[in-house]
């Protein structure tokens, strides 16, 4: 073996060592969550001896128990509706505004777009108290509409779609005009389908953001029947924090659907995050 290929082999060896060590660090919390979820509470809090694996059989029934006692069906339903409406609203309003900012000329455009940019720079915590008071005045506390409320429009999505529309070839509108399309038709049938990947990015970003958000659902949906998975977990921990297998089983149930979706649509997830680069 000459020195070059030897150096290459050593290099590769160390690369794998680093990657594997990191992979183990990333995996340990997940593995421990699942193992704990399959134990009895007695096993989970046994120290001497300390059990890594479940000792008296694997208690898959823990999942069924928390499924029923914490009403996961409702939590899933709330979260799905929450995500669905947020994604629809964000995509709908942002694609329209993005098209106007990216392809049309109209008076006041610069000023309006600077408002979009300013919104993106302001930390969102400053909006929360008045948003909560509005939801409360509209009698939307503990409703899906209340959950969706701050996400009806999106400055970040508008910016993302604007960039996408700007990148499309110049002569598209002219060709459409020759075919007799008005601006609305040009947008709907010609331009909009071409920004598909940006829309998917925005959709994934919006869905993840809604799924992960904790403070807003806790504030507007304090009851267990109306809240989202994240806020539901916070509630469970507050009430039954010492039943460790139940807590871990709940955590597994809360994250598994999104993990499955992520593994199926991996490419879109990674590209969506990389291209949008939004703040999560």
């Amino acid at each position, binding site marked *: 073996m000459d020195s070059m290929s030897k150096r290459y082999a050593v290099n590769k060896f160390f690369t794998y060592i680093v990657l594997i060590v*990191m992979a183990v660090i990333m995996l340990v919390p997940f593995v421990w969550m699942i193992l704990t979820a399959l134990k009895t509470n007695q096993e989970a809090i046994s120290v001497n001896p300390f059990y890594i694996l479940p000792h008296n059989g694997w208690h898959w029934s823990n999942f069924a128990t928390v499924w029923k006692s914490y009403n996961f069906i409702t939590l899933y339903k709330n979260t799905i509706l929450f995500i669905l409406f947020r994604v629809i609203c964000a995509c709908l*309003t942002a694609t329209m505004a993005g098209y106007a900012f990216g392809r049309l*000329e109209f008076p006041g455009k610069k000023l309006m777009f600077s408002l979009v940019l300013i919104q993106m720079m302001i930390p969102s915590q400053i*909006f929360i108290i*008045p948003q*909560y008071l509005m939801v409360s005045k509209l009698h939307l506390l503990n409703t899906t509409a209340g959950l969706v409320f701050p996400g009806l429009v999106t400055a970040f999505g508008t910016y993302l779609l604007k960039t996408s529309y700007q990148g499309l070839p110049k002569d598209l509108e002219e060709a459409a005009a020759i075919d007799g399309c008005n601006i609305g038709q040009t947008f709907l049938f010609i331009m909009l389908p071409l920004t598909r990947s940006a829309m998917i990015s925005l959709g994934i970003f919006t869905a993840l953001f809604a799924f992960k958000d*904790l403070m807003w659902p806790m504030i507007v949906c304090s009851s267990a029947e109306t809240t989202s998975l*994240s806020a539901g977990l916070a509630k469970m921990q507050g009430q039954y924090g010492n039943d460790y297998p139940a807590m871990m089983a709940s955590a597994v149930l809360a994250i598994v659907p999104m993990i499955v979706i992520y593994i199926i649509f991996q490419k879109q997830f990674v590209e969506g995050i990389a291209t949008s680069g939004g703040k999560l």
Partner: protein
Amino acid sequence: MGKKKMTPSQKRQAIWGWLFITPTMLGLIILNFYPAVNTVYQAFCKTGDFGKGNVFVGFKNFQSVLTSGETWQSLWNTVKYAIIEVPLGIVIALVLAVLLQKKLAGKTIFRTLFFLPMVCAPAAVAMVWKWLYNQQFGLLNNLLNTDIAWISDPDIAWISVGIIGVWSIIGYNMVLFIAGLQEIPKDYYEAAEIDGASGLNQFFNITVPLLSPTTFFIVQTRIIGALTVFDLMFMVMDKTNLALNKTQSIVYLFYTYAFTNSNRGYGAAIVVVLVVFIMIVTFILQKLEKKLVFYN
């Protein structure tokens, strides 16, 4: 507005343009700009009791917020959290991204795995880590044969929470770095290879400068993200935790006052202080960008 008459085409564009931006602009004004102004106004008010309106009290809230040790302690806690999360999260992610550029078997599996925490609810992640950190029954103490109060010792808890932050964010930073690395032309490396530059040499002389726009973007978003951390803190640090004072972030403090204690005026003042703080940090970062970032 000019008095010049618009051509029919300009007129059409103006109508459609405004039609298309109206939902978004109305939304931004009602949901964001009005609330921002209203929060500032509330910061000058004493929150009225049930049904009664707010009472204007001038700078009183700011006075109490800025003279309270709790506020400064929380700000300092937040900065400490950022000092752990931002550099560690970025350096580890950069190393992983560079390693994953090589031709390796199982590359996609590693990438999928490192990104996994990004698709998990922080609430769930924090629950698991809290359980790992459990002093009596936790995996860490039992595996390492230690008796460390990971999250209730005030001297340690901020580091423990920071580690959760790093673990959660590595994959996100890594994906952005991978995208940035792919933009660097391959010929730079080929030329360096011919000149006999070592891998480390190439990393510091080609990768680091050419990647600096990506790095800067990540640094900026992560600093702001870390300064507004809430979920992890809230889930890991109970109200009864002895280390709470020395660990809670400024947004946690805001949440406690504005929503747990319903003292909205005081909460609003905290959030205004936070925003001013973030504005200053952003301003400094913008100045640094011109000096440190290399744009082709």
